């Protein structure tokens, strides 16, 4: 990579967020008791597992200029299905398979409504957010199913022998590598970026826009269901309200990672760094006995800064070089109105 490109990379938000991860790690280690323990590292990593899993596919969905707010409800539905079937005496492995299938169906319904019926994904997934959560209640009602096999719950909470790395982080890493390569180096990834910026032009270039989007939603559903499996095992409890309200945290993590809400821009490593930053701050603040409201506050401020900082940096750079364009020199942003 050339020096200019490197500097460019660093000036970007992804660069900044990696920097922030390091800085917050160092600061927390120095100032917060017990932060730098290896067991604490495991806690941080385990704590963000579900968010990370859902964020991986949500990144792709947002880069494709769509959004999926139903992820947390799909997670809940997946938990409910596992709980119901497990309670009914099914083998645990089969309940996982069914849960993943249910996740796929949830994603497919989102995908169908968005790509075939042509509804805006924000509206659709607000609707399915209520629907999938509601179905979870219909399935297991007010029950809380427990007594999952310790072998599996162990995997969800334990670390790889001799390291502070939890098994669940290994899972996240494997998924991230697969999806990351898909996004950043495969033809489909190229297509996702292109259609995120300009769907029409991508279609005219032979990209199967609808098909790709449909499968992205399916993937998002499957990953959310997977997060549901991890959630069920980690808390050894399957309830209809598992993961309620988590959707905004996942969206926040993805945006924090530098993905543009308008599509087309963002990287997976950036998002993972965003998730990690989220986890570190949360953990350090709790350890330091900072109250929860401050935590929310900090999350919100960080989210705003994540977009504000690059904007301001750009403005300052421009001001320093003495040029102040009356209007930001936006290179002819495609003005196509995405609605019909």
């Amino acid at each position, binding site marked *: 990579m050339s020096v200019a490109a490197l500097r460019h990379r660093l000036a970007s938000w992804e660069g900044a967020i990696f920097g922030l991860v390091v800085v917050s790690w160092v600061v927390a280690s120095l100032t917060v008791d017990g932060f730098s323990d290896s067991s604490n590292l495991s806690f941080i990593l385990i704590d963000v597992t579900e968010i990370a899993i859902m964020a991986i596919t949500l990144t792709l969905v947002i880069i494709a200029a769509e959004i999926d707010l139903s992820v947390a409800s799909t997670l809940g539905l997946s938990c409910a299905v596992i709980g119901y079937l497990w309670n009914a005496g099914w083998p645990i492995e089969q309940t996982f398979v069914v849960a993943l299938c249910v996740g796929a169906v949830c994603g497919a319904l989102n995908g169908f409504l968005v790509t075939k019926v042509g509804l805006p994904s924000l509206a659709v997934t607000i609707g399915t957010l209520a629907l999938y959560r509601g179905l979870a209640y219909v399935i297991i009602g007010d029950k*809380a199913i427990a007594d999952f096999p310790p072998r599996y719950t162990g995997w969800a909470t334990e670390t790889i022998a001799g390291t502070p790395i939890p098994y669940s982080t290994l899972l996240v890493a494997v998924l991230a590598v697969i999806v990351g390569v898909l996004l950043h180096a495969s033809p489909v990834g190229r297509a996702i970026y292109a259609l995120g910026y300009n769907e029409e032009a991508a279609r005219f270039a032979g990209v199967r826009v609808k098909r790709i989007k449909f499968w992205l939603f399916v993937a998002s559903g499957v990953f959310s269901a997977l997060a549901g499996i991890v959630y069920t095992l980690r808390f*050894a409890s399957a309830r209809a309200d598992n993961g309620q309200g988590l959707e905004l945290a996942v969206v926040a993590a993805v945006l924090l990672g530098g993905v543009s809400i308008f599509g087309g821009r963002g990287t997976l490593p950036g998002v993972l760094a965003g998730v990690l930053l989220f986890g570190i701050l949360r953990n350090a603040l709790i*350890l330091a006995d900072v109250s929860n409201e401050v935590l929310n506050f900090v999350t919100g401020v960080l989210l705003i800064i994540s977009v504000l900082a690059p904007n301001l940096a750009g403005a300052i750079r421009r001001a320093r070089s003495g040029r102040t364009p009356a209007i930001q020199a936006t290179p002819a942003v495609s003005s196509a109105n995405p609605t019909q």
Partner: protein
Amino acid sequence: GGTTKSDVKASGAPASSGAKANPNAPIKKGLKIAFLPKQINNPYFTIADKGGTDAVKELGGTGKEVGPSDASASSQVSYINTLMQQQQDAIVISANDPNAVAPSLKQAMGQGVKVVTYDSDAAPDARNLFINQASAEDLGRTEVQQIAKQIGNKGEIAILSATPNATNQNTWIKFMKDELTKPQYSGMKLVKVAYGNDDDQKSFTETQGLLKSYPNLKGIISPTTVGIAAAARYLSSSKYKGKVKLTGLGTPNQMRKFVKDGTVDAFELWNPADLGYLGAYAAAAISSGQISGAAGEKFKAGKLGEKTIGKNGEVLLGPPTVFNKDNIDNFNF
């Protein structure tokens, strides 16, 4: 093939601290005891935890309240982990989900942290003691008795609960239903259990719905402080005021207005500050080795006197107080 449920044996016995208890051991100085409510900024828990931290201060230790702002099991787990990391001596917790917090609580116990649950229990093997605010059976039955008295043992009643999977609520409701099977209540009929999700507005709307869909409704039991306040508010401004009776669990400050204006005759509650207070004393006792958590052991609980550990490691706070027009001004919480 695969692992099925029958392969997994549930272990129900409460965890015992193993070591032999020494009833005469002094309370250790400088104990670190943390209170982990279901949700912070919840007035009920704020009062309970205040009672708890005051007790810890009395005992010469340091107490604090930490917790999530959303009542979810998953965020409680991160707090358990950090409390373990901070090497607290004891955690006094009200579990959002008895099973979900169990693995981390066990892990904490494995590191020597004592775990006392209050208000809402965790899986018995994941804690040393449970401070029971009132026996579920007592509560469930007395609520039915209360409403029966107010409506003259006749008519339709409904229950306005919190969330569908709140453990304590569901146990109470179970006992209420059981109580209703007794012959003296043959004139009463439980028509519906509604859920207000411990959300003020939802509870309010649910109350409206109840009154509309059951025009002959005579009474409502709301065993949740949020629910009873919302229901009282609706009743007080509607034509049903005084005609449809309401009872349940509420705090005097919340309900004072409605008791005085005649919307509510009587309701009951234990004193949440005492609940926290007892939790703190129990935690201190077990951390100091005075008790091990076995049934029959006794410990001193400050102003509450001596308490005995019952079966399953439960310590009972005592019977709930019934509040009515005559006594409500004596309470301020």
